[in-house]
């Protein structure tokens, strides 16, 4: 009788320990202040001179003083490019009183079809304050290379990544496609606070 009670008690203890381990996961996660991929140390973003949406020659360095959200895409895209531009528009609007500190920058991967007017029509659908760049293939190729953008199929297949450049003109963070807009907003606010 005593033997049976001991066995039952032992079984109960074992089951209890098993339940504790199943419910409690001891794996620790790394803590990160930023949601995007941090570029450390920050290095100057590659400057370029291309044609803007108004048909004028303009450089990236002229936009210093703002947080730049740079995205490469093409204006006739029906999925990833407009989706990303919509996310960037949400990011800018989500900055509330800091909205003027952020600037969306669109750079074409399809020089054959993306004329300045086509770029203007495209970016105005999302945020009229955005700046769009296009140019000839020979103008754009070095920019793609500097930003690690792979372009294939006449620009329709390309790397999708958002680059965050700080007001001093340094690459600071990058984001995967379909990132949560609030996460990017939180990161920009951290940078504004001096982190």
């Amino acid at each position, binding site marked *: 009788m005593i033997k049976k009670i001991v*066995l039952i008690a*032992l*079984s109960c203890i*074992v*089951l209890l*320990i*098993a339940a504790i*381990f*199943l419910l*409690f996961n*001891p*794996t*620790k*996660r*790394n803590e*990160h202040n930023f949601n995007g*991929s*941090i*570029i*450390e*140390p*920050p*290095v100057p*973003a*590659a400057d370029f001179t291309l044609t803007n949406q108004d048909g004028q020659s303009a450089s990236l360095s002229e936009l210093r003083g703002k947080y730049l959200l740079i995205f490469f895409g093409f204006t006739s895209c029906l999925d990833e490019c407009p989706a990303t531009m919509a996310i960037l528009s949400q990011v800018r609007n989500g900055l509330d009183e800091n909205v003027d500190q952020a600037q969306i920058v669109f750079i074409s991967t399809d020089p054959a079809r993306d004329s300045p007017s086509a770029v203007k029509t495209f970016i105005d659908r999302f945020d009229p304050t955005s700046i769009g760049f296009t140019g000839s293939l020979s103008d754009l190729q070095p920019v793609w*290379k*500097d*930003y*690690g953008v*792979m372009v294939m199929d006449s620009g329709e297949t390309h*790397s999708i*990544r958002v*680059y965050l450049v700080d007001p001093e003109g340094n*690459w600071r963070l*990058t*984001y*995967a496609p379909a990132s949560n807009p609030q996460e990017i907003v939180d990161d920009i606010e951290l940078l504004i606070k001096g982190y």
Partner: protein
Amino acid sequence: MLVGLLIAGIVSEGAFQSMGNTISRPPQIVELVIPAGTSEKVSNGQSVVADGMIFMVGDTLELINQDSIAHTFGPLFVPPGSSARLSLDTPESLAFSCSFEPSQYFGLDVREALSPGTRIKGILLAGIPMGLLLSVYSVIAWPFKEQKKIPPTPK
């Protein structure tokens, strides 16, 4: 029950020891260096970085670019002379597009770290059902065998 736990413990710990040290270490930052001259070697079809790295959940991959051009790895962009980090929070096998391999793909294997708690959990999960089965066996089989040993009663 105890016999079941003992057998499960021997099997589980034997398997754990045979898999080596890589599955039990705590999360850490793992550096992957893209050395100078990588772009030239890659354009010549040479592989520079060993593929098939194994990571633990919670690890951080730090990609350090010592090359003269920017490199990319999945969501990461690493300008020359800088680094970028990728948190690996989910156990999965990843194959990211990258610029530092001739195949333009680089694979990562992210595994669940085997902490002492996980090892005990494994022993209990295997040992308890085995112990219960042995208990049932002892209740059903032993009395049956004992019945065979009863000598026939003399008439």
